[in-house]
């Protein structure tokens, strides 16, 4: 032990420089990996938020359509016009220029179904079935029994990285079972 402290031989500048260089490399690599983990965590958090936004938006559409009346597909499947439970004429339409899906009640200002900062809408297709009969007597005979919505979305992270989300939603409206359309008058 005494010989260690009495040893006057020191490290050369080259040795110290090499050690510092290696140490810097190690710090750089470890910090880079650590930053990647943090970035991945932030990105995943953003995606979860976007997915939750999609879930909320589709659930809102599902609930409104379930109790709706008089469904009409417009603009080659880009819009759906119908009457809400309270007989307010409502339109859900895809704006391809803005890449946003809008929900609009009569003359009110349209509001986006999904948060445009989190979800980009690439394509939306609406479809309904057609009745088998020409009867126009009772609402349940000519009412659409199913409404299908195809979603081609991109969910975004704040870093600008996106991932696609393609799925379909179907709604069998409850009011298709009524004898008369209460919103028809």
């Amino acid at each position: 032990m005494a010989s260690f402290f009495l040893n006057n031989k020191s490290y050369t500048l080259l040795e110290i420089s090499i050690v510092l260089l290696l140490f810097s490399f190690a710090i750089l690599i470890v910090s880079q990996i650590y930053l990647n983990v943090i970035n991945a965590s932030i990105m995943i958090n953003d995606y979860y938020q976007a997915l939750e936004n999609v879930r909320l938006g589709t659930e809102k559409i599902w609930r409104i359509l379930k109790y709706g009346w008089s469904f009409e597909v417009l603009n080659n499947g880009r819009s759906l016009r119908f009457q809400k439970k309270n007989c307010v004429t409502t339109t859900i339409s895809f704006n391809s220029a803005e890449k946003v899906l809008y929900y609009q009640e009569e003359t009110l200002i349209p509001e986006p179904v999904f948060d445009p900062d989190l979800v980009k809408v690439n394509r939306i297709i609406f479809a309904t079935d057609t009745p088998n009969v020409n009867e126009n007597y009772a609402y349940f005979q000519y009412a659409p029994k199913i409404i299908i919505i195809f979603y081609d979305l991109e969910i975004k992270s704040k870093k600008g990285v996106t991932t696609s989300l393609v799925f379909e939603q179907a709604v069998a409206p409850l009011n298709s079972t009524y004898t008369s359309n209460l919103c028809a008058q």
Partner: protein
Amino acid sequence: MKNKGTSFGEIMIVFLIISVALIVFLRITSDYLKSLVFVKDFFILNSLLQSKHQLLIAYRNKALEEPFMVETIAPAQWPIFPSNFCILFNTSTKKIDITSSSNCSFTFIDGTSLRNVTYTISAYSDPDYYIFDIKAYDRLRGINSEINRLYITKWHPSF
């Protein structure tokens, strides 16, 4: 001058520590990304199952409602389901089609298919209602959805 260098064992220990640290970090990152993929896949599988539920309800409604005449009170025609079948919305006829099969692929209304995903619907009949067991499977990720059981009355809810 002492010539004692670093031994092979010491170098190996250093490498081992660095490798373990790297593996831990990379594992955390990959787990994060994997969890997103799984959540997304479950979302898609669930939306598939939900759409099949609604198609089944719509098929029942259509079969019961369209032939029903208020004046004559025609007896309800219950739809007949095979024991295993696929159900889909036909975009050209705009009707709901049923085909007997025990392994179904999923096609969107734009004509594209949900690759790697298959689903099965098994039907059981009771005097008053149908029972449908719907299950989806993602071959690529090896994800099986829970079996979704749906009860639909044979009689009409409003007639």
